[in-house]
């Protein structure tokens, strides 16, 4: 065994990978077809009994070279493809891409469109987090009940997406310099009704499961990730905040109109799976607050930058990196333009992919049952991991 040359930086854990052959170690390949790998993801797990002594993530089963497609498609043509990255959060993917292109082309966004973006992003965050809570609890073995409750609420949000953008998941809604369609007052009233009832749903959901001793036993102290290690490993999103680092791009970058809204950033003290679950619940409560403010303040006005062109968009040569706080973490797009209709380089910075870096560290020493729960708490979507 050669010691891993991985130097611990800022408290990052050193990997104790023991490559010696032991007769009683069992190598199990979890995935790509496994009920709880959230898609075609594979973990090659070496078990000592039920304890994990080694875990190697194997990716790429869903790889379709999204970035290459992006380089051979026009700027507008890549927009529907971004829906398919993290297919739970098409709205935020669209926004991140639109943001990068707007920076590249020097476009501005009208106020109403910014409000709409905030509303849609927060709705997207709600449905992503509620999904995650459902999946995570499903992974702990709850026979579908929390998942079904979560999906019931998610359906309502997807219905809203469908009414506005025409599609439930593949929204393809944002455009460079604004949004595609305007929201009717009736639609905004529907959102308000949903937001009004969401808090009650969260209360019921928490009553169902948060205080459950089995859940606490399964998640507390499992998969502990501490702040410095998380920062070094590039962890973003709720996972980073669960590790105790209050880094939220909505606050830090202040993109969109987020500085106008008051909301808090919950942080966890333990960095374990329970914290990662609870941070999402708390973030949903903050999102409800943002949505209420946005629905109250949304102004009338145009939704597209008059400078923006739908067809034949050719930004000047240059490059830009735009990132937003997606529900899963920092989703960024890096674009290089050479002045033609297609980007010279189109790069996605996928939060799920980078967050997977620490999977092995979190799982080592835990049991195979924990690995499933830890993977669930990282919140990956394979459309984004593999691209």
């Amino acid at each position, binding site marked *: 065994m050669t010691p891993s040359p991985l130097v611990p930086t800022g408290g990052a854990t050193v990997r104790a990978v023991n490559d010696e052959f032991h007769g009683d170690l069992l190598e199990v390949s979890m995935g790509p077809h496994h009920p709880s790998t959230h898609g075609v993801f594979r973990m090659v797990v070496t078990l000592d009994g039920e304890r994990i002594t080694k875990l190697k993530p194997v990716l790429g089963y869903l790889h379709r070279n999204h970035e290459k497609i992006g380089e051979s*498609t*026009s700027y*507008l*043509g*890549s*927009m*529907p*493809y971004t*829906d*398919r990255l993290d297919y739970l959060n098409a709205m935020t993917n669209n926004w991140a891409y639109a943001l990068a292109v707007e920076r590249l082309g020097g476009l501005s966004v009208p106020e109403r469109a910014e409000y709409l973006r905030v509303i849609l992003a927060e709705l997207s965050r709600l449905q992503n987090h509620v999904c995650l809570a459902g999946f995570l609890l499903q992974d702990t073995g709850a026979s579908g*009940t929390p998942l079904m*409750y979560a999906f*019931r609420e998610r*359906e309502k949000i997807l*219905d809203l997406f*469908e*009414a*506005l*953008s*025409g*599609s439930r998941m*593949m929204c*393809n809604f944002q*455009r460079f310099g604004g949004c*595609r*369609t305007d929201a009717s007052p009736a639609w905004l009233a529907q959102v308000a009704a949903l937001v009004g009832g969401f808090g009650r749903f969260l209360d*019921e959901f928490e*009553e*169902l*499961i*948060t*205080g*459950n*001793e*089995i*859940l*606490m036993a399964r998640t507390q102290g499992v998969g502990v990730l501490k702040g410095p290690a998380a920062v070094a490993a590039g962890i973003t999103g709720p996972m980073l905040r669960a590790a105790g680092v209050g880094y939220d791009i909505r606050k830090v970058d202040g993109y969109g109109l987020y500085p106008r809204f008051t909301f808090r950033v919950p942080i966890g003290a333990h960095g374990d799976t329970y914290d990662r679950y609870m941070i999402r619940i708390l973030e949903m409560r903050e999102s409800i607050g943002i949505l209420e403010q946005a629905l109250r303040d949304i102004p009338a006005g145009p939704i*597209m930058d008059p400078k923006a062109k*739908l*067809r034949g968009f050719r930004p000047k040569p240059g490059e830009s990196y735009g990132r937003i706080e997606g529900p899963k973490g920092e989703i960024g797009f890096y674009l290089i333009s050479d002045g033609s209709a297609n980007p010279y380089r189109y790069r996605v910075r996928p939060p799920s992919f980078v967050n997977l870096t620490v999977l092995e560290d979190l799982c080592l020493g835990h049991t195979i049952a924990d690995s499933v729960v830890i993977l669930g708490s990282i919140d990956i979507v394979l459309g984004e991991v593999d691209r």
Partner: protein
Amino acid sequence: MLGSGLLQGLGVTAKNLVGSFHDPKRLTTVEYPEQKTKLPEAYRNFPFLVSESAEDPMGTLRCVACQICEKECPPQCIFIEKSKDKKPDATGKMQIYPAVFLIDSSVCMNCQICVEVCPFDAIKMDHEYEIATTERFNALLLDREALAKPNSYFHEIRPEEAAEVDGRLAAERKAAEEKAKAAALAKASAAAKPAAPPSAVPPKAEPPKPSASA
């Protein structure tokens, strides 16, 4: 005390069990083949070609085979071949029309970009979602006969947008007619006054604006 959280959870599930029988807010399921949810107007699934009349769909397609959608389609699932002859379009102008219009529904990702870029309101997104077939080769490649649907259908699925489009087209037709009339008048006056320069080039139709949704 150990078990309090468990009992709380049991309480919630019991409430839901009872609630699902009398509270429609809880039991939100739609029993699909019998019941169907009302689709929102914005719903999009697969494009269709708008034709003016239901009787002669091929003769009255709004599409003028400009091939913009073919170029803009991100997965490149559209193929258009221009016709050799011309026929009058929605505004009464002589236009070429698509001799072949193919959309590969196995590749189409329902992104609506073809609709957004179409300057002629000729392609729109459908509400049809029961599009499964048992044959995965030819049945998934739809030709213009399969794609054409009359304007009345468009009105049926998207009343607001269709009314807006019709209004705009009517205005354009009117403008075109007036221009034609003016041109005829001018011709007549030109005939009366042979010294006037011949207006060989017919007044160019106002290029229609891109779809209002942009």
